[in-house]
């Protein structure tokens, strides 16, 4: 079983965040769960900590539809930032959108490892962590 030090959620949906946090906790595989309410907060944190390996997450569960900076815009910014980071950050899109357009678009971005359609179960979370 893999263990994750830092699992980050980027999502503005309080209910989803509450329930997913509970589910992550139940896996007993994660030390720290960080939550950002939109893409901007997340990307600002990553920029500030790009040289601080311990603060950076191993995996980000990224929502697409968010205020201020949505998931796509976050990915644009992240693509610029990624080469400057000395740590592999796995990004999994986690959206309620079942639109094939969104799935196709996500697949075309090399920084994106997977596309998960909400809801996310505990088992799926374990799969994701083991896949790291």
């Amino acid at each position: 079983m893999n263990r994750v030090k830092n699992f980050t959620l980027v999502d503005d949906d309080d209910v989803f965040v509450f329930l997913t946090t509970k589910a992550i906790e139940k896996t007993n595989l994660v030390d720290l769960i960080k939550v950002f309410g939109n893409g901007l907060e997340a990307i600002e944190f990553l920029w500030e900590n790009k040289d601080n390996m311990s603060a950076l997450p191993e995996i980000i569960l990224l929502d697409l539809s968010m205020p201020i900076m949505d998931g796509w815009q976050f990915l644009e910014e992240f693509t610029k930032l990624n080469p400057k980071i000395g740590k592999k950050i796995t990004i999994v899109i986690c959206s309620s959108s079942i639109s094939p357009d969104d799935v196709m678009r996500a697949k075309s971005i090399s920084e994106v490892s997977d596309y998960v359609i909400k809801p996310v179960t505990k088992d799926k979370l374990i799969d994701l962590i083991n896949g790291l």
Partner: protein
Amino acid sequence: MDNVDDYKYALDESSIVAITDQKGTIIYVNDNFCKISKYSAEELIGQDHRIINSGYHSKDFIRELWRTIANGKVWKGELKNKAKDGSIYWVDTTIVPFLNADNKPYKYVAIRSDITNRKISEEELIKILQEITDYKYALDESAIVAITNQKGIITHVNENFCKISKYDSEELIGQDHRIINSGYHSKDFIKSIWTTIANGKVWKGELKNKAKDGTYYWVDTTIVPFLNQYNKPYQYVAIRSDITERKEGEELIRLNNAKVIEQAQKLTFKNTQLVDFCNIVSHNLRAPLINIAMLVDYVEQSEDEEERLMVLLKIKPVVNHLMEVFNELVESIQIKQDTEIKSDKIVLKDCIEKILIGFKTQIVEYEANIKIKVSKAPIVYFPHKYMESILTNLISNSFKYKSPLRKPEILIETKNTQDGKVQMTISDNGLGIDLVRHKDNIFKIRKTFHKHPDAKGFGLFMTKTQVEAMNGKIWAESQPDKGCTFFIEFKSTEYEPS
């Protein structure tokens, strides 16, 4: 006698001379006669004069000649004769009858001079003239022909010209060629025709002309300038052919193409709206549904009664949210479906002032400065309830996203666009939107760009839906922390939207 010999010598040297008896039998020829007829004197003398008959002249002509000289009169004329080798020559001929005591001719002296070259030239000229006449006939039959002088005054028209222009030739001749001007072509185009032909060059092109009864016709036109010895045009010959049917066909095809393109654009637009709508459903309706499903699952699985109660409490707001989004969507569909809605005549100043009453508290509280400049386009035709909703939305946005550093300033302006639409701008000095970051999203449902507690991301989506339902356009310009300007283009017709 010396004198007579001198004359004879002079005559022989200068002319073709033959003498026949009263029956026409040759009794004398001079050297010139032999030279031109290519017979020797021996071959000729004793022969009937008809030996050099070319058969060219009619029997009547020959009979008349004989009648004249047999009556003792001198005959003058031009004859076509045949030489020994079959070649033809022309001679200007004078036949003088010599009379006996009974006043009857006993011999005829024919004095001729060679006019073959002149006659050949004449014949060629006649042939060319005939050809020209034939050409003119063919041209008149097949084409529409008009001739004007160098000033453009019509000097000649053929029947075809009269037929197509529906004028009589009397009505046309002496008139300026502009009598058939349709006004369709630009001044520059007409000027370029004149420049070409005035410089002595041929002009070819397609022209739309107007007939006497006001109908139009298209002609494929070639204008040929005829030049005088100074190379200046002294007249212009215009040769045309009727291409009205072809041009009308082309016009029809062009119109149909334009229609098809317009339809395609409409369909593309509708399709974009549909895709947008699918995305809205996918993003905005599915999210709260999943929340409910997850919450219910959690309640089912939880064994801790306190936790179950806490999670149950979370369901209610999600259901409310789902309901809200759902109602908003239904409202927007109603706008899209409401194609029957009629435009009202809106006096903008009154309409805006009425809406501003609703913002009175905010205006006073924030010391806002609101300017209305709608005198350039004071009236717009648009559904009243949409206009109120649009203005309320945009003005409330300006207040909601005002800068904390400045007193709000809002300017509402209108003007007429070049293509007959009304453009309204609503600009403020507020926080602005980072359009580089948000440009595709600002009018989408549930997109917000500020961390404002009231930001729901629905106003601009609805505003855009209302504007587009009436075939209008909306777009924005903004710089973060400078302000924001919304542009709305109203089609502003009194008619219903299509």
